């Protein structure tokens, strides 16, 4: 696709930067073949590799955007952007109408095998490091580019740190009432928050003042969809068999007209309860996972129970009751819950404030007045949209509130406020990268523009 004609201008030699591979070649004494290492380094740092990688990343980004329509963000993110390899799909449509639709109206999709964003970005980082920084010729003209590349590298590192180290979740608190007006099970203050997507099975054992907890991550339990997964532990006088795992479900009474596909429990003196599967939501955080457990003691006594995790974004009551049972005179608790994380401080919601645009239901502003408790000290703060609270490596963001009604709730439960909590060491790095890149761009493109304005090329083209 290249136009071979000789040209006065072309990509003029004056504004081309010799790619690393060419530089390496130029420096090599004539007649001597380059070593394997040098050739490999040349390939990794080559500008053509950059082009290929950038195009691959663009393809992933584009297809990964379209895939969200069908698969939702969470799944797409894992398939396309946090994977090594992906069978990307290009759903064919024309003028917004699907082409060759199947029974569900989904368009026919072209399958394109692509490397996932993980290896592409890792290689891009290497390519940038080798070709764009280490092996780049040091020249006044390249200073801007070097600065830009440093900024991009910082950005990629920040992304990597975020992906590997950071975790986040949600925290919902009720507004603290007047002294003495509190309700026992409502959570007004917390020093923990819960994961958006991930669940765990917790076996707890109260021992005097403390509670000993053992947790089993969801990944280990998902096999229970079709299998029985056995959970046991040193010092536990029983084992737990997990079965009938459901990715999204609700506990329902078994009425006479209801057909249950899962076991019905407690049918003795009532209709009995069962976990009814619900369509799995694409927004994964909206799902409530559930499972059935059989507790088998050493003397082969069996106890059946079912567990279901908490609804999305509702306040996590601090008395969220686990399933409690007794073995050999010791009480144990079993809970299927969103993964719980600790914060080095406690947060209390003092007041939630909301304002609508006049005469409408549309919210103009919502914010939370909170008190932060840490090491016996306390201080007041406000969290609102675009203004998170950063503390102890954590950042807390105002995301939602409830109940979603107009006006102040009267009589019923008070307002609760929902925060997103994130622990991310690279929180501020992208911002710094942005400054670096902006400076690099101004230096590089500014200098180029000035050079062009004074160049003979311009004179030749305008004359």
């Amino acid at each position, binding site marked *: *696709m*290249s*136009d071979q004609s000789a*040209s*006065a*201008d072309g*990509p003029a030699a004056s504004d081309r930067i010799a790619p690393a591979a060419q530089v390496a070649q130029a420096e090599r004494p004539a007649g001597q073949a380059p070593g394997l290492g040098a050739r490999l380094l040349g390939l990794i740092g080559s*500008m*053509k590799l*950059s*082009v290929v990688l*950038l195009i691959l990343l*663009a393809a992933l*980004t*584009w297809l*990964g*955007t379209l895939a*969200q*329509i069908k698969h939702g*963000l969470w799944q797409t*993110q894992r398939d396309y*952007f946090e994977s090594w390899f992906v069978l990307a799909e290009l759903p064919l449509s*024309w003028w*917004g109408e699907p082409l060759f639709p199947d029974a569900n*109206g989904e368009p026919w999709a072209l399958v394109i095998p692509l490397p996932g964003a993980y290896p592409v970005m890792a290689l891009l980082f290497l390519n940038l490091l080798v070709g764009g920084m280490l092996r780049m010729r040091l020249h006044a003209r390249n200073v801007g580019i070097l600065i830009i590349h440093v900024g991009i590298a910082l*950005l990629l590192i920040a*992304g990597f740190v*975020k992906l590997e180290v950071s975790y986040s979740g949600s925290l919902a608190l009720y507004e603290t009432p007047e002294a003495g007006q509190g309700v026992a099970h409502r959570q007004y203050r917390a020093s923990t928050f819960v994961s958006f997507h991930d669940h765990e099975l917790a076996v707890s054992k109260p021992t005097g003042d403390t509670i000993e907890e053992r947790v089993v991550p969801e990944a280990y339990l998902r096999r229970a969809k079709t299998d029985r997964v056995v959970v046991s532990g040193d010092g536990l006088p029983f084992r737990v068999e997990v079965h009938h795992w459901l990715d999204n479900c609700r506990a329902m009474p078994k009425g006479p007209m209801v057909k249950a596909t899962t076991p019905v429990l407690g049918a003795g003196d009532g209709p009995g309860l069962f976990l009814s599967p619900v369509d799995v939501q694409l927004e994964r955080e909206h799902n409530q996972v559930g499972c059935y457990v059989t507790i088998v003691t050493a003397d082969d006594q069996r106890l059946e129970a079912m567990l279901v995790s908490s609804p999305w974004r509702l306040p996590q009551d601090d008395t969220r009751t686990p399933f409690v049972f007794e073995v050999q005179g010791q009480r144990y608790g079993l809970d299927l819950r969103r993964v719980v994380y600790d914060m080095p401080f406690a947060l209390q919601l003092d007041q939630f*404030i909301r304002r*609508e*645009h*006049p*005469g*409408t239901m*549309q*919210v*103009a*502003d*919502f914010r939370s007045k909170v008190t932060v408790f840490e090491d016996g000290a306390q201080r007041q703060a406000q969290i609102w*949209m*675009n203004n998170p609270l950063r503390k102890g490596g954590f950042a807390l*963001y105002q995301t939602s509130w409830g109940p979603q009604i107009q006006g102040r709730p009267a009589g019923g439960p008070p307002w609760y406020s929902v925060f*997103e909590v*994130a622990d991310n060491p690279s929180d501020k790095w*992208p*911002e710094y990268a*942005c400054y670096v*890149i*902006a400076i690099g*761009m101004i230096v590089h*493109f500014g200098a*180029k*523009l000035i050079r*062009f*304005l004074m160049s003979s*090329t*311009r004179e*030749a*083209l*305008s004359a």
Partner: protein
Amino acid sequence: MNATNQRLRLLVLALLALAVAACSRPSPRLSEVPARQAPWSKECVDELARTPVQQNGRVKPLSVWAAFTLYSVHGRRDLKYEYGAESSPQKVTLEPIEWLLDVWCYPEQADEYPLFRIENVAVLDALGIDNEGQKQGFEFLSFHQAAASFEQLRTLGNEYAALDAGKRSEVQEHIVQLWRHFREYDNLRSTLDPLRYPIAVPDAELQQLFGGQQVKLAELLAKGPEFRKRIAAMGDAVVSDDQMVVMLDLLQRMFRFDSGAALVPPLSAMTPGGVGEPEWLYVGGGAELVLREVEGPTRDAVFGLDRAVNGADHAAIEASLMRYAEAVITAAAPLPGAAHVDLEAMYYRKAWHYQSIHWFLFGFVLAAACWMFPKSRLLWWGSVGVTVFALGLLSYDVALRCVITGRPPIKNLYDTFLFIAAIAVLVSVIAEFVLPRRIALAVAPVLGALLVMFARLFEVSKGEDTMDPLQAVLDSNFWLATHVTTINMGYAAGLAASSFAVAWVVNRVLRLSDVNGKEAKAMLRITYGITCFGLAFAVVGTILGGVWANDSWGRFWGWDPKENGALLICLSQIALLHARMSGWVRDAGFALWSVVTGMVVTFSWFHVNLLGVGLHSYGFSSGLRTAVWMTYCIYGGTALVGFIDVLARPKPAPIARLAEDEDAELVPPPLPAKS
């Protein structure tokens, strides 16, 4: 390949670009002679247009509410109809505010207006409405006709609305929209209902007081003190009189009636908590205040509206409307949020951006003339001057929007059109000064005119007030000014760059000038320069977006469609620059890739908003789909034809010049040196 042929091509190109399809639309006929035949007086229309009203969370001129409602339900900027003898019909064109006044004061007439646009007769079939089959063009259904099929419309409308938006068939979608428009019109139409319908009066003494067994709200208010005295005197007897309870209950409901917009300014600027703007009152709420013996503008406004609704003749109606307008304008003056109503009414009356279209087109004509008479410096300066003047009008328009809303230039998808138009023209004009080869001179005004025309189309097809208040998450002037502005400058530059690449491809395919001539080289140079400029803004804008997201949602990057779109522009341009640097692409490759980048910009700018997923889908509009796909077709077609041309003719011969032919001058020589 002679030069005469070239001139022809140039001419055709210029004409094509200028061709504004003048589609004359026939005005639908009214079956009966309308009640109001005298036009609304200019004085009355002007005064009502600038009367403040609170709707959708902000105080705005009545004309703006009328206009966006008409755009939404009618899909046009004005309403046309004709009546009278078929041989010599009376043709009428109503401005939105005139239409609103008809809806309020002459509802029977307004209900007959050809209002709801029907694009597919299958809709009429589904609703059981008689029709003559699919015709060329659209049909319009009056409110009266639609109301005759109300049950069917409501049933189907609600049924289809419950379906997933993406799963509705064309007809189903149309019915959902029609049902929405029907309710929207009905909402507007019933704004003044509390003043329109009488209440039954059961009490004999009250009957005597009101002079009949029925009373309209305003008559009741006029005798408010006596009415209250009588009710007080009845004491507990009211509760035991079922008929009285019904009457008072109905009265209460009228006071709480909240259809349409809040027309009556509040008595004070106080708000709960002391922040924000006070809530205005609907006409019923205003009536309640009058019954509580509130005097002044509130009373004038309510009685003015009453006389307008129940007026005897047209002159009296106009006088009453003026009384209402005057009262509200006086009362609203000191209130927060109402400060810019006059300015806004003026803004829409002048429509500077609309005027800029004409000047852009004129600038293009001059640029085309400049190609014909390349020696004329006067023409060059003329074209530059006119384009810059048009840009000035457009920028003034954008600046006014900032003043009225108290926000940076971009708050929603509509704003992006005007802003991007201004930036794209500015960048192109600068390019013309850097490389004065009359290429940017022609591209700049075309870009400006097209983008502003798109903005106008978008405004009407969306039918939502473009200055309405923002969602809480967007409420940050700092981020609106930084991230949103920079990323849109990236879009603007990306579009401008791709336009010059399109020019290069057109030039090559049609052999307008030498492929290796100075014109072609200059086009590539400009494309390259603007790409670099745009890339800087796109990259910084994208990262700033991440920084904002990190402050509002707690993550820098979430692979949200809008974020991905912005990233795609950056990736495409970065890859292009690296491919050019490494020698992988040369002139043709660079140009074709730049054209494709134009598609990427289109995808990112507004196609992702149509996907219906992600956090940024606040700009959704199905009417935009056609525009998006048309843009794809233009860019894609250009790239394809250009690609085939490059394959078929890798090395086109230089264009023959006939030395003795005066037409040879058509390959424009350089501009004469400045004297």
